[in-house]
């Protein structure tokens, strides 16, 4: 089965480990992630001001590209997922903005036709935006994954960190219960992990404030990491490269702030999936982390 | 001076009782209107209003209970929707929509009734006598 795939900028650059582990795992589950032939940045953050359509043109353009090759598009990055899904909803529900955005798309097409005979049809939100985890649940099934697991991750205590953008705004994302989500726990159980629930799994890591107010982001991330650690997590999984960066890299800073701070590795959920499916370690690439996950994985005889 | 003829359809629970209160309080208002008492403003059919104009009324005033206070739950909402539409139809018929007014007047609002009566008579007086294009039908219905 081929499924259109939108990687987004970060997975194309800094988060290659996320991208590769996801593609390889999908392949092992019989899904070919088909990267959109043309795609651009989604804009990273969804605009909250209401008076312009300019800010949603980037995601709309990508959705229109996706509509040329399929009826759905899968993405991994929590920011991309948020922006694409919300822009899609605008195109479905807001006729005025849809009309305006399509005017831009048509202008795009005219400009492009001259060089690459690439046309875009008007877009009205027909593509379904899926997160990779939803693809696993709905197109593969967690039961089926459990049956394909070759390396049971039993004995490894894993906490799933959801962050903000998958869940909120809840009425637009409709991803899971915004306060007590369970999709990642259900997934981790399928892999045989010892699942660690922790109350900060839906709290913010500080997000982009790492650029502007790094202290705030460190405090937020610390709150998340410490909470998971306290409940016995050996490792934390995430689906957002920015969350990964904040939770992982900022442990350097946390060590300075918290006495007796114990580090915990942060990996992408697809890396654990790959591990469970027996995918070669080189595709999973555990080398790119600040807190190296290999010692704990080795200790649990998973590497 | 032109003295308009007004037909008033008042619901018996609120506006009719409000008009009685205006009387017991000896408030004064112009005698242009005569009241037809109905159980509920929701009883008023657009035909009644149009009939009144055909029979020589220069204005029609409908009085009902305030929203939420209808004795019959929601008759006044039905009236509200009907009057909205009817005002447009009247416009199409060449009758100024302002000749039809709907007011919520409770049994305690004698003062409001007086004010509305005065206002409405002034409004209709300013509009002048209703001139219907067709000759007015004088004969009674069947």
């Amino acid at each position, binding site marked *: 089965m081929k499924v259109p795939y939108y990687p987004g900028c970060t997975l194309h650059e800094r988060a290659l480990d996320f991208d590769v582990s996801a593609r390889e795992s999908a392949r092992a589950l019989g899904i070919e992630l088909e990267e959109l032939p043309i795609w651009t940045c989604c804009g990273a953050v969804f605009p909250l001001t209401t008076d312009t359509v300019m800010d949603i043109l980037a995601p709309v353009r990508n959705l229109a590209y996706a509509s040329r090759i399929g009826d759905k598009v899968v993405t991994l990055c929590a920011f991309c997922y948020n922006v694409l899904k919300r822009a899609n909803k605008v195109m479905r529900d807001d006729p005025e903005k849809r009309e305006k955005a399509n005017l831009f798309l048509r202008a795009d097409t005219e400009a492009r036709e001259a060089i690459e005979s690439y046309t875009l049809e008007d877009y009205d939100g027909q593509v379904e935006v899926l997160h990779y985890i939803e693809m696993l649940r709905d197109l593969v099934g967690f039961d089926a994954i459990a049956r394909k697991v070759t390396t049971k991750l039993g004995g490894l205590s894993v906490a799933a960190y959801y962050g903000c953008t998958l869940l909120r705004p809840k009425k637009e994302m409709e991803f899971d219960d915004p306060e007590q989500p369970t999709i990642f726990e259900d997934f981790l159980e399928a892999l045989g992990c010892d699942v660690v629930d922790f109350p900060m799994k839906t709290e913010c890591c500080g997000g982009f404030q790492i650029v502007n107010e790094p202290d705030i982001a460190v405090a937020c991330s610390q709150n998340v990491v410490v909470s998971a650690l306290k409940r016995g997590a050996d490792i934390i999984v995430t689906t957002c490269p920015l969350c990964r960066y904040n939770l992982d890299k900022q442990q350097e800073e946390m060590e300075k702030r918290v006495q007796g701070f114990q580090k915990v590795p942060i990996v992408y959920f697809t890396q654990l999936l790959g591990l469970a499916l027996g995918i070669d370690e080189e595709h999973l690439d555990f080398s790119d982390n600040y807190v190296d996950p290999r010692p704990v994985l080795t200790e649990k005889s998973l590497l | 001076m032109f003295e308009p*003829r007004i037909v008033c359809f008042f619901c018996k629970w609120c506006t009719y*009782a409000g008009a009685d*209160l205006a*009387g017991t309080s000896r408030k004064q208002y112009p005698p242009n209107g005569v009241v037809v008492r*109905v159980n*509920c403003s929701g*009883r008023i*059919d657009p035909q009644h209003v149009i009939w009144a104009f055909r029979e020589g009324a220069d204005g029609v005033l409908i009085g009902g209970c305030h929203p939420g206070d209808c004795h019959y739950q929601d008759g006044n909402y039905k009236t509200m929707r009907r009057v909205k539409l009817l005002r447009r139809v009247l416009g199409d018929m060449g009758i100024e929509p302002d000749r039809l007014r709907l007011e919520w007047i409770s049994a305690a609002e004698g003062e409001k009734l007086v004010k509305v009566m005065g206002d409405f008579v002034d409004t209709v007086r300013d509009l002048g006598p209703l001139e219907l294009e067709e000759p007015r039908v004088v004969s009674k*219905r069947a």
Partner: protein
Amino acid sequence: MEQRIGVFVCHCGSNIAGTVDVKRVAEALAKYPGVAYSTDYTYMCSDPGQNLVKDAIQEHDLTGVIVAACSPTLHEATFRRAGTAAGLNQYRVEIANIREQCSWVHQGEKEEATRKAIRVIKSMVEKVKLDESLDPISVPMTHRALVVGGGVAGIQAALDIANAGHEVILVERSPSVGGHMAQLSETFPTLDCSQCILTPKMVEVSQHPRIKLMTYCEIDDVSGYVGNFKVKVRKKTAYVDRDVCTGCGLCTEKCPARTDSEFEEGLAKRKAIYTPFPQAVPNKPVLDAEHCIYFEKGKCGVCQKICPVDAVDYEMKDEFVEEEVGAIVVATGYELYPVEKLGEFGAGKYPDVVTSLQFERLLSASGPTGGEVRRPSDGEIPKEVVFLTCVGSRDPENHLPYCSKICCMYLTKHAMLYKHKVHDGQAYYFYMDVRTGGKGYEEFYQRAAEEDDVLYVRGRISKIYEEDGKLICWGVDTLTGSKVEIAADMVVLGLATVPNPAAAELANKLKIHTDEWGFLTEAHPKLRPVESLAPGFYLAGAAQGPKDIPEAVSQASGAASKVAALFAEEEYHREPVIAWINEDTCAGCRVCVSVCPYDAAEFDEEKKVARIQEAICEGCGACIAACPSGSAQQRNLTDEQIFRMVTATLED
């Protein structure tokens, strides 16, 4: 029929005659078509005045009467009686209001007032010409009431109706009467012990000679209409013949199966064969098959073996009983909003985040801790307790938009009682507004703050989670504009009150209206607050909206007095000026059915026409205005009458 109408113009002393030229009016009307007699008199409502009317009816063989006088709200009944006495059908006597709506409001305008009076009377003459002779609708009536729900409201309604001399059937779903009030510790603002004041009423209701108490029963079906309901009651399978059972309690004592006690809100266990609480009425057990070892595994049977009177019967099945009643009081009560819906407060997974009813049990001397406030998780006495209002209430975005009304007060009571029991404890009370509308309520709240040192914090709590055995509460104090964090030992959630979920199903069966949240809708929010729009149904207690005990009891007594008033007559009488449908012209479009607020308009599937149920129609006229073919009409206020009245008001 040739019309011979009499017109009687009243002077009302100078009240009318001072402004209206009554002589001229009477003379003008004498010439009006259909008028056979016209006169004026000083005080028409006086005895000589009424005799004048009576005599004229007989002397002139009048077919209708108009009394031009004060508002019909004052003397319509008087003159209708006079008409009846003279042999004229009372519905052919009408009032023309020339006082409140003419002479009194046009003082000093004699000419105009006189002309207006003439028009007013002419219009009424036109009405009476087409008035039919009608009789009040009489419906035979069963003088027995059904009360659904055995909480305090149902108990009160049953007692009041029975004490007024009528038979009552009180149906309660659970094994005992008492409702939520039986679970409460003490009651605000007087701190009476709830059971102490309730138990005598529970006993009274079970022993009253005119009350048939049916516990562990449900309403299966209701048909008929006011005065004539047929009710099918399902007696749920108790597996205990409760007529034979002596309530000795041996079965419960010996039963080996345990499950969560509903009465203790899950804070204690009960047996599979059980009475819900020691003071239960009737004090006889039922067997809960779902948790019974015999029903699960086919063996055990201890209760049957030990029962000295052979009351336990595992083969028992549901039974149905038919009852006839004339009126129905619905008192199905409330439940708490499910804690599982509060994800930010742990969705019920933290044992020490308790519901308000659980906290009542913890405060109750008969509760699982004997009245000591102890944490469900470890039995420790909590030293920092957070009380949280508006949990699910006043939250249109995520939960319920309405105010649950009782939480402000019961949480204040909770905090106060907690402080009475744990002197060195700290009580935090989070609120948006402390609503203390009620006698003695504000004083009670002030006492909690001043004397018991309950700390009132203005703001909501956003998140609660467990950390190192504490419940961390993220709250806000909006008065200082700061986020506040409390490491609490226990949190009490003032969960919203919602109608009993089974009540919606019942309302459906009864065909009475509920609002979108499932609360029963009253006939009029101010003037008919204890009746349903559907005749014969009365509302009591929290089923109609959140209520505290005094309010529930007042409404129950109100409903009971309405029932007693209904039963005061041998038959049920109604005004006959209601809608009817001309079956010959009805096209069967059912618009009338859809607009009728009382479900009085129904569709006759055989004849394919609509029909008005005379016992139910209130005469609002909504169906008539909506009927596209003019087939729906109102008796004595037909469209034809309105047309003619309008014309008459416009003629000079």
